């Protein structure tokens, strides 16, 4: 017998944990759709299997509710807090780093 004795079915539970994320960030950010409208953060924290593309906008102005458009903002966080981001993640062109 070489197979695992059991494989507890918690993969989906682990996937669900992705939605817990962090709520306080050094800079305000909103998860937006391709039109720049606010969508729930879960869309940016999990891979979208529907083919829709979501991303965070850092800064900018909006009503702050789902469906509101964000005016301004940047796709990469600013380094105002002495922290710069976006220094990784340019390599894959969306294909991912696994093989």
């Amino acid at each position, binding site marked *: 017998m070489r197979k695992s004795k059991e494989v507890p079915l918690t*993969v989906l539970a682990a996937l669900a*944990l992705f939605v817990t994320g962090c709520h306080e960030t050094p800079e305000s950010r909103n998860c937006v759709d391709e039109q720049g409208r606010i969508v729930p953060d879960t869309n940016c*924290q999990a891979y979208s299997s529907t083919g829709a593309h979501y991303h965070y906008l850092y800064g900018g102005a909006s009503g702050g509710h789902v469906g509101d458009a964000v005016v301004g903002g940047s796709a990469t966080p600013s380094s105002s807090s002495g*922290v710069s981001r976006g220094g*990784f993640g340019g390599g894959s062109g969306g294909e991912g780093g696994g*093989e």
Partner: protein
Amino acid sequence: MRRHTIAPRKHWQATVARTGLTCHTLDDGTPYWDESAYWEFSAAEVDRLEAATAQIQEMALAAGDHILDHNRLEEMKIPSAAAARIRETWNSEPPALYGRLDLAYDGRQIKLLEYNADTPTALVEAAVTQWYWLEDCFPKADQFNSLHEKLVAKWQDLLPYLQQPVYFGHDGSEEDFLTVSYLRDTAQQAGHKTVPIAMHDLGWETAGARFVDLDCKPIQSLFKLYPWEWLLGEEFGPHALESIGAVNWMEPIWKMMWSNKALLAILWELYPNHELLLPAYLDGSRNLQDYVKKPLYGREGEGVTVFRNWVAEEGDTEEGVACVYQKLASLAVEEGNTAVIGSWLVDGEPAGMGIRESSGTISNNTSRFVPHLFR
């Protein structure tokens, strides 16, 4: 080894999605997880594959020593800035989790095709999806697959060595996201606290000279499904090098020696005519008539060209990149399906296998995953 065709389970898509494999179908609508067939092995064949995997791992360890003792990183096109850190981590042995050997096996000879040592995927399929398939379809048969147990056990071993939480960095594809989610799951089952983070969200705090998460908390343990050659080529590459030691990067940077396809030529040099190796060279195809040209940093079949009778027959040649020239292997082919065995190692020990099928000779990211069993 023998390929059987079989009726897929009713509602197989929903069934495999429930156990985590949501990317079961390719963009063209054909199955990626393909349970319309399975491969059957004998226990003796699995014994051979397991022993071959362990033996190749031994040879890879010797090759690592050789590469450093004989200063061969430059020849492998590994950036010189990484050399000191590779040497240091090779000796200090920080945590390393897993890897996957791609093997050619035609029922007679086993040959190493390459070692995906840094960022292997197709793990959920191998560890979970095919395990549940076996439970459903052939509960009395066995499977070469103790991946889940071994991953959880390895994470348990690492509990004293890793600062909590352990961050899991991912980027891009759904496949990578699933792999990272599953590895998080195994780490959590072992007692680790885990946090996912997109690679582009990793922050560098200048004042503290440290990596931080989105809450500006320092990151000290980071599993990244993102190859070292990409990390080093990007803006934060120098910070990654600087942080080694303060951050436990998994896989460690020395894995650049094994995931680089120059390893294949170095192994052949160290173990000429070894039964588990194919002739492979860095300086050209030499005396090979049927061979495969692979970029040293190629990924998922990209840039791979198959030559038969010295003529390029399949694949795309990438000009101007360093390559290894490896003799064409004899692969298992049934009904037009070419099978490659992905033989997994966890903590350096054989841990199971997954089989990918392609219509041509080159495996790539659309090669179908077909389950296996043995009796």
